[in-house]
């Protein structure tokens, strides 16, 4: 069975212990205003445009049926009308236009991951599943975790927490560490900025804690949205209620992602 993957990032040192490889799944139920991986939001492959690779041959300009490409001294891409037909990708001579994701099997993913085995063994690292929301591709996620465990890899799952609890139950025995994101404690604010209520998320966290799983709660610090004292202390006291031994990490906002919106021909709502 195949999964939709946006990237396999080796030498990943921010998502769990040691030196790891992070596999980014495509598709996410939430649509956070500040999303750091916008290319992983949608569950469908999308056209991305790497303008630094463009040689301005104007092929795409001529052939795009939806007129998404414009000539302003350089080629620019606006995705509003794009129906992801892929004609431009097939005709770009230099790979400046490409799909934002690849459909590959768990075995293929693992082949890439296993290239860094020696680093995991030395550093206590392993594989991290991130995204997007890995649990949205639950079968593929399960398959990849199962295969990883067969190779005796340490597994971490970076999740938004938004999934049916039975999906959690399915993969739980295969996950050594949950990196559980909580953005906002106020359900209304959560719905306003991410599109969905946080009730199932908090509920899942509570139930996972009951199972005694190893969890790190991560709060992305988005200036003006999640970094208020009220929100942070609210999350912290909720986590304490769930279980006392849970570590909370605050993740600084990464302004690098602005460029990713540009690649997708989209406007970043944060601007």
């Amino acid at each position: 069975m195949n999964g939709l993957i946006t990237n396999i990032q080796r030498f990943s040192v921010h998502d769990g212990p040691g030196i790891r490889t992070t596999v980014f799944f495509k598709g996410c139920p939430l649509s956070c205003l500040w999303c750091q991986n916008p290319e992983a939001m949608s569950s469908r492959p999308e056209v991305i445009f790497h303008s630094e690779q463009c040689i301005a041959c104007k092929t795409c300009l001529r052939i795009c049926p939806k007129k998404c490409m414009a000539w302003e001294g350089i080629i620019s891409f606006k995705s509003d009308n794009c129906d992801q037909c892929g004609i431009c990708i097939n005709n770009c001579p230099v790979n400046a236009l490409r799909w934002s994701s690849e459909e590959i099997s768990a075995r293929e993913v693992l082949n890439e991951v296993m290239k860094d085995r020696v680093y995991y063994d030395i550093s206590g690292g392993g594989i991290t599943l991130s995204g997007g929301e890995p649990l949205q591709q639950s079968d593929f996620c399960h398959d990849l975790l199962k295969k990883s465990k067969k190779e005796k890899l340490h597994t971490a799952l970076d999740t938004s927490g938004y999934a049916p609890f039975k999906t959690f139950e399915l993969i739980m025995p295969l996950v050594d560490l949950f990196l559980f994101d909580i953005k906002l404690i106020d359900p209304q604010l959560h719905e306003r900025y991410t599109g969905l209520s946080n009730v199932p998320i908090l509920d899942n966290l509570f139930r996972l804690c009951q199972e005694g799983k190893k969890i790190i709660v991560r709060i992305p610090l988005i200036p003006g949205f999640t970094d208020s004292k009220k929100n942070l202390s609210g999350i912290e006291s909720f986590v304490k209620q769930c279980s006392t031994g849970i570590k909370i990490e605050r993740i600084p906002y990464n302004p690098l992602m602005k460029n990713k919106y540009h690649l997708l021909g989209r406007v970043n709502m944060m601007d």
Partner: protein
Amino acid sequence: MKTTNNCNIKVPDILIQRITEDTERYIEWLKKSDTVIDSNLLLAGPFQSPEYSVWPRPHDNFHYPLGMKKLLNLGFSGIKSKAWKNASNFHGNERLYLRLIHRVYAVIIHIIESYAMAAKEKRLSDIHMVCRSLSRRAPSTFHEACQLYWFATVFRIGTSTIGRIDQHLYPFYRKDLKSGLITEAEGRKLVAELLYRFEMRGGGRGDTLQNITLSGRNAAGKDKTNELTYMILELMLGNQYIEPKINVRLHKKSPGKLLDMISRFQLTGTGLCTVFNDDTIVEGLKKYRRPEKISDDYCADGCSEIILDGYGETSFRYIDCVKAVEHTLFGGKENVPGKKSMQYYASTQDFVDINPPVSEGKKTESFLSMKTFEDFYRAYLSQLKYQIDAMLSAPYNSNENPMRLFTAATMPGVIEKALNPYSNKACWHTYGLFIGSLGTAANSIAAIKLLVYERKLIKKEVLLEALKDNFEKNSLVRRLCLDAPKFGNDDNYVDAIAIDIARRFALWVKKHKDRTGRPILSGLYNHLFHHTAYYVGATPDGRKNGDPVGEHISPTPGTALKGPTSIINSVSKIRTAEHIFGSTLHLNIPLVSLKGTPDPEAILKHLTLAFMINGGCVININILDAEQLIEAQKHPEKYHDLVVRVWGFSYYFVGLSREMQDHVIARSQSE
């Protein structure tokens, strides 16, 4: 195999004549030195020798460490008396040779006596006692050993590698500590002063060859880390010296504490600490018929080439495998005009690193007539082999300048048997050939294989035209070339080419023998990479003339896109155990990629360990902040203290040439 006169065991007439003349000049030079004693310091002697320069000409062969172990063991007086005593066993030139050594050491002892007197006048009883003792006998205390270390350093013209300082001095330190003669704090003060003196002697000159090599294992595999190893590293971490340059020999059983200190060094970003993998190098040296006892004493010489501490010199030559790609594509000719060419560059150099057969290349068939990739690759290999053979069969005369007797006397067999220090009976020379820019050459060949022969996307004549034109007009060709597989991304398509070139290179070099009849060593190293960038024209990997080439076995700056683990994996596929003369990975990690990680030191330690487990040879981890470097280039006045690794040495960034600064910036952005 050609041998020149002065390779004979005995000292020939022509040599003795030059030695006699030179010795007179040397003694004049010695006598010029003032008696410098500072009452605030523990050791006597000036920071720098009179008329000091890093590369004095005519120089004492600077790729020759002093036999410090022997010197500490016998003392100046021991060498003097031994030379005198043994002289009577010989006749003619040999006797004259030993008597000249005696004369040199007598002058040195006289100078030390005058130090003792001057100290007495200044009522500095410690320095007085130490100098008096050194003028009469071998050092017996740690203080005396440190003083001898310094005198020996400044009595030599020019600089050289310092060698295994922690091993040289440890017996004295341990004895004094045990007997209660000194405390740990007193010992530390002496070591601190010695290091301070090396820093002052270097005087911020950059490439001074003042390398120290710490730790390491012995023949039985036992770790030789001692208290001085840690003390030196702690002191070097504590102050912002760029000298002496630190090299550490690690192996399977190196203590964790040592590894931790090294990663702390790496994190400072100065690149001051180069790691040598004993498990690869000591084992490798055995294959080159070096006895175990001697191999165990290898140390870093200047850049990353190795030398046998106290047993002989190192010398090397260099060819470039990316230039050979250019030669193959252009029928043996260069693709850079006039003053930019390698031939012109070679003609401006007064050393033999690049000689005409190599810069001219072999006249080969036209690229246009090479029908298959195999045709092309065969032509490339024959080009490379031609250059290796041309370089290694050219007469070898790095020892035109006779070794000064002060240095020679510390070599094995010289004062005992009146042996010529350049002879194979006396010394264990390390002679090697370096090949540079392996990654860039592999990238270029991979691009030709994929784009010209397999996918047929670029016609041969179009590629040649684009290369001649430095990709100015044809951006499509350049884009395709840039997108071809690149070394350093753990991609077998291109890594396999690098492996094959390296393997053949080792085999071809090994077939050549040095003047002592032992196989010549090979190394994957390029000490001229910043020049190579300019005298190699545009390459089929999409690199323009002037853009950096990959240093040593590192990827071409800007082309390794998957991070350090992929780089180490690519490099590990090359059997560097066959290239122990020095195959260095410069691993540049942008500071930003480590920000926010709980334990960046542990990450660096684990990368080093993985490199060693994979059988790597030499690694230098450099943490660079590209933005800071660009700022420093714009506002040098604000960044006087910013130190970066260059090749064999670390140096102040603002003091580098613009070309070198650009190279360092490019590599900081690369991974």
